[in-house]
């Protein structure tokens, strides 16, 4: 196998052998080989089976544009759809071919090829409907799904990939000849430059072909080495290799993914890919061109590949896929392949050119004559034949006569297209070039400059002045470059998209999209059926919708369609190139923002105490709040909550309320501002007092609630719900700045400065008097809904007398740094009075017994204060507040709106279930009219049965009547509609 190696390729370490397995068989490659180049080294051509017809497929290209060579890497994570032409091999790598059963060589699926006349474009739209519609779900779809898809699903693998943000002035995409020259022109200017190259070698065309042998009198490899040194010593240019730019977003924002494990086995403990997120002022696209193929009968046989790729395997990867290839081309780009072969004294079996003898470059003509290579001009390859590999081709020359050439390899070239994918992503416009028969970038939409073949400038003599002209805006170093090329500089191409079939039959196929098995016949059928708009054609035939996005064939399809419709190509338009340029791994996109870092766990100042005391936590937004405190491993939530509730009613309990929002509002117009934000009026409120307040949206619906403490007319502190904290502050700031800028008022969130302890229960006063011995907690000195500042061991605390449980209680605001000390002190003194910590579930139960609402649970954005029976909270004589006008709109004053009521089961042992609905009829025949739904329901330890709050149509007037509640098993239970309060109706305990 040795003679297939081209030893003078500098990029392959011929002294470092690497073993790998392909479909279970062990082969050897060298360090620097891709899977594809290593397979060629072992003479392997068959690499996979096509998507629909399961036809044998070989390696078609030498890069990211590969349609066929997708393989599965079998390892701990078994990655599917890996491009063999890009992925470098590593020791012990196991590779498997895809989409074939039982084996690559013998694939049952190829039966599809026999029935292929039935599987024409869009056949699945026209069948699979009979004999009964259930057949689709039971029979047809499962079969289709099993046959579809290429690789097998991956196993779980904690791929560590990191993100890295960049802020630069100029990004150069592509480190080939033009990319390097652009970098040289920007050397040591005051622009921060990032040069990004997808390969692990800089040089591009200089490495991939022998077209250019000298630059400024030096061999190109030497010039490259020297240029790289200058760039690396510069202080303003950074190079990123193995990094592929996948997305060019609006306002010059690029996404690129770097493979950190080129040629090595990825492990779970190191970063194996980095997603670069680059903000730049300017982008220079010098990412070169992509060769396109030609359509002829059986142009998909293993052993057929693109000419430039064949040359790239020789120069870049030091492997010669075949000793006597035939070359078939319609353009001058293939000349350098002949040059490369002859330098290794390999003689092509034949050179077939669709152009006439005169049109062929004189220099190529002499080369072919000198080495007496059989030449066919005005000729086209009509068909290729062979069993699972190319054996012979049929050539037709200008006279119409055909001849047969036996060969194992055919290098095809249908011309070259500038790689405009990124340019169109940047929203730049394209223009069709009638001479070079391809789309080229024209007006950019952002600061985008295209250079070299990426801008459709294929002439090496133009390189110098294109760079100096286009980069003038950066006033760069002037470029002087002399390029000695072995082939003609001018790019010539003759129009050729498709060769008519040699033996056309129902089974003859000439492919336009190799990966999705789309033939030129499918395109003609699509147009005859009326799908003549290019986007319709693409969707109906699935042309260029595979993982290669039609990089080597979508322009050909436009050519064929323009001929069929006899319109000019730019009248046919072009399909929109959708990001990403090449498939981008989910792990790279997620970066470190997944798994354990998906979202922060916000902790209260005494979080560790909760953990030590066995709290079970609940997620409330990003906060972790104690849900309940089981007294043993086995205690269920229900039992714990019943125990905690009973204890608060009989002794005392304390809840960590630090997560609730706390906002400080101060300024000359603070009172006026608070009156505008909340429904209540705070004008007559005495300083030092507190009031429960509601905040509405402009639509009049309840948005948040909280307690407002008035320090003075110019200084308030407001609490909000945990979930609403950020929105309330944001809403206050919005209205203060945009609606009422004349009001002198400032607001700051102090949520995190203070811990909040809500202590309540009949024995609270005794406990508090022990904890804060010098404060007078008597009713006279400390009435309900008032607050006082006190100094406790040199820290300022605030105590407010308020309660959400219905028991007599206080809210203690303590600076976070002394929270633990005071919390433990409360427990230390409270023990003797039976004080226990309780969680959010108990708080929900106790507040429901008092009929207090929870915003977001008893309200869902469609409930007004009047619906909740909270008319008393609306400042009657206030001229304006948020949402006031909505309260008098026709639908909001409707009497039969949903109103808050209490619900009791008629027979006590029935279970009221949260989320169920209230009905007027006992038996359910759907659709049954619903009065409303149960917003909260709990089992009350004091009442001994379940109860609930509900919002039902015309609820207030239904209090005292009976109805039914649905249950989760579609039955109903009889219920009594009562006032929404079940405990201490006259609030005596609150003010005791």
């Amino acid at each position, binding site marked *: 196998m040795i003679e297939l190696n081209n030893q003078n390729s500098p990029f392959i370490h011929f002294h470092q052998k690497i073993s790998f397995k392909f479909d279970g068989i062990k082969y050897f490659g060298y360090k620097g080989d891709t899977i594809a180049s290593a397979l060629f080294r072992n003479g392997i051509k068959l690499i996979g089976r096509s998507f629909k017809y399961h036809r044998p497929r070989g390696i078609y290209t030498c890069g990211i544009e590969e349609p066929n060579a997708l393989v599965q890497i079998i390892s701990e994570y078994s990655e599917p759809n890996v491009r063999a032409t890009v992925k470098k091999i590593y020791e012990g790598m196991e590779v498997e071919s895809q989409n074939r059963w039982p084996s690559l060589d013998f694939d049952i699926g190829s039966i599809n090829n026999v029935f292929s006349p039935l599987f024409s474009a869009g056949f699945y739209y026209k069948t699979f409907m009979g004999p009964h519609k259930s057949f689709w779900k039971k029979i047809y779809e499962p079969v289709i799904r099993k046959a579809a898809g290429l690789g097998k699903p991956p196993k779980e693998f904690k791929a560590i990939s990191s993100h890295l943000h960049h802020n630069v002035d100029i990004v150069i995409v592509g480190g080939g000849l033009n990319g390097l020259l652009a970098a040289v022109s920007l050397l040591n200017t005051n622009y921060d430059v990032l040069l990004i190259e997808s390969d692990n070698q800089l040089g591009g065309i200089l490495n991939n072909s022998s077209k250019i042998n000298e630059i400024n009198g030096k061999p190109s490899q030497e010039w490259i080495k020297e240029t790289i040194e200058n760039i690396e010593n510069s202080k303003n240019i950074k190079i990123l290799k193995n990094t592929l730019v996948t997305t060019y*977003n*609006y*306002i*010059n*924002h690029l996404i690129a993914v770097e493979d950190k494990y080129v040629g090595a086995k990825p492990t779970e403990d190191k970063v194996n890919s980095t997603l670069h997120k680059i*903000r730049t002022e300017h982008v220079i696209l010098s990412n070169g061109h992509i060769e396109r193929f030609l359509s002829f009968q059986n142009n998909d046989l293993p052993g057929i590949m693109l000419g430039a790729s064949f040359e790239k395997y020789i120069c870049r990867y030091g492997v010669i896929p075949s000793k006597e290839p035939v070359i078939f081309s319609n353009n001058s780009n293939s000349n350098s392949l002949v040059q490369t072969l002859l330098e290794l004294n390999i003689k092509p079996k034949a050179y077939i050119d669709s152009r006439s003898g005169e049109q062929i470059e004189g220099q190529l003509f002499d080369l072919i004559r000198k080495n007496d290579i059989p030449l066919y001009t005005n000729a086209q390859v009509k068909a290729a034949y062979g069993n699972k590999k190319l054996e012979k081709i049929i050539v037709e020359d200008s006279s119409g006569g055909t001849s047969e050439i036996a060969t194992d390899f055919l290098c095809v070239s249908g011309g070259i297209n500038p790689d405009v994918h990124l340019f*169109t992503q*940047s*929203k*730049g*416009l*394209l223009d069709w070039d009638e001479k070079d028969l391809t789309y080229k970038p024209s*007006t950019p*939409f952002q600061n985008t400059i295209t250079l070299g073949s990426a801008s459709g400038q294929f002439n090496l003599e133009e390189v110098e002045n294109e760079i100096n002209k286009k980069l003038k805006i950066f006033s760069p170093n002037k470029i002087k470059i002399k390029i000695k090329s072995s082939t003609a500089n001018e790019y010539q191409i003759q129009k050729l998209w498709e060769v008519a079939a040699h033996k056309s039959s129902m089974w003859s196929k000439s492919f336009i999209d190799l990966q999705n098995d789309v033939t030129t016949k499918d395109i003609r059928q699509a147009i005859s059926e009326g799908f003549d708009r290019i986007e319709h054609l693409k969707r109906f035939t699935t042309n260029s919708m595979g993982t290669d996005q039609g990089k080597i064939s979508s322009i050909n399809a436009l050519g064929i369609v323009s001929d069929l419709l006899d319109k000019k190509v730019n009248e046919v*338009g072009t399909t*929109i190139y959708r990001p990403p340029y090449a498939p981008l791994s989910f792990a790279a996109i997620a970066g470190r923002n997944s798994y354990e870092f998906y979202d922060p766990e916000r902790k209260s100042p005494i979080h560790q105490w909760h953990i030590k005391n066995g709290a079970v936590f609940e997620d409330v937004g990003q906060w972790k709040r104690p849900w309940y405190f089981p007294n043993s491993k086995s205690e269920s939530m229900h039992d714990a909550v019943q125990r905690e509730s009973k204890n608060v009613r009989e002794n005392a309990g304390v809840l960590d309320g630090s997560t609730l929002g706390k906002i400080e509002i101060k300024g000359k117009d603070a009172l006026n501002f608070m009156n505008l934000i909340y429904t209540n009026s705070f004008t007559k409120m005495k300083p030092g007092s507190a009031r429960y307040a509601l905040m509405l949206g*402009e*639509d009049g619906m309840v948005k948040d609630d909280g307690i407002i403490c008035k320090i003075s007319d110019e200084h308030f502190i407001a609490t909000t719900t945990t979930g609403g904290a950020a929105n309330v502050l*944001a809403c206050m*700031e*919005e209205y203060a*700045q*945009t*609606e009422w*800028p004349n009001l002198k008022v400032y607001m700051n969130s102090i949520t995190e400065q203070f811990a909040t302890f809500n202590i309540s229960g009949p024995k609270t006063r005794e406990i508090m008097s022990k904890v804060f011995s010098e404060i007078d907690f008597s009713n006279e000195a400390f009435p309900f809904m008032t607050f006082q500042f006190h100094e406790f061991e040199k820290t300022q605390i605030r105590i407010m007398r308020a309660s959400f449980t219905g028991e007599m209680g206080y809210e203690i605001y303590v600076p976070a740094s002394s929270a633990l000390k005071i919390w433990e002190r409360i427990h230390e003194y409270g023990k003797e009075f039976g004080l226990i910590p309780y969680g959010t579930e108990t708080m929900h139960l106790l507040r429901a017994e008092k009929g207090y609402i929870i915003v977001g649970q008893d309200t869902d954005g469609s409930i007004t204060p009047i619906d909740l029976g909270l008319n008393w909270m609306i400042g009657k004589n206030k*001229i*304006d507040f948020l949402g*006031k*006008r*909505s309260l*008098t*709109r*026709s639908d909001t004053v409707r009497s039969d709106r949903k109103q808050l009521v209490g619900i009791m089961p008629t027979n006590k042992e029935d279970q009221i279930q949260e989320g169920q609905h209230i009905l007027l009829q006992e038996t359910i025949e759907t659709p049954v009219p619903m009065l409303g739904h149960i917003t909260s329901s709990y089992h009350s330890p004091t009442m001994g049965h379940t109860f609930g709050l509900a919002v039902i149509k015309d609820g207030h007037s239904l209090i005292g009547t009976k109805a039914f509640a649905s249950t989760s098993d579609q039955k109903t239970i009889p219920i009594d509609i009562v006032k929404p309060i079940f405990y201490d109706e006259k609030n005596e305990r609150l003010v005791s």
Partner: protein
Amino acid sequence: MLVIDCPYCGPRDQSEFSNGGEAHVKRPDGSQDISDREWGEYVFIRSNPKGLFYERWVHSHGCRKWFNCVRDTSTDEILEIYKLDDPQPPLKKFENKIKTPSGEPDVGSGNFTVKK
């Protein structure tokens, strides 16, 4: 991701900002005397042009200040940023600045600026 030039902090990535919808929508004050329909229009209806749009942004993860901007919603291009108390720039000022977005065919691009 857009780049937005906050009038107080300078150019920043769009992830630091929150969008506030249409600008220059005056909230009816002491609003008892207007009809349900007019109030409904204030609460629910904002203009939605394909083209030049007066828009509000707030630097919610920065200085937390609100400001206005003129943006072309057919291309996302930000044409001008101005403070709340700066005067509203007239539409005429931006007429010739609109670039056609790529990919949309001339015919059928629906890309015309809606005159108020």
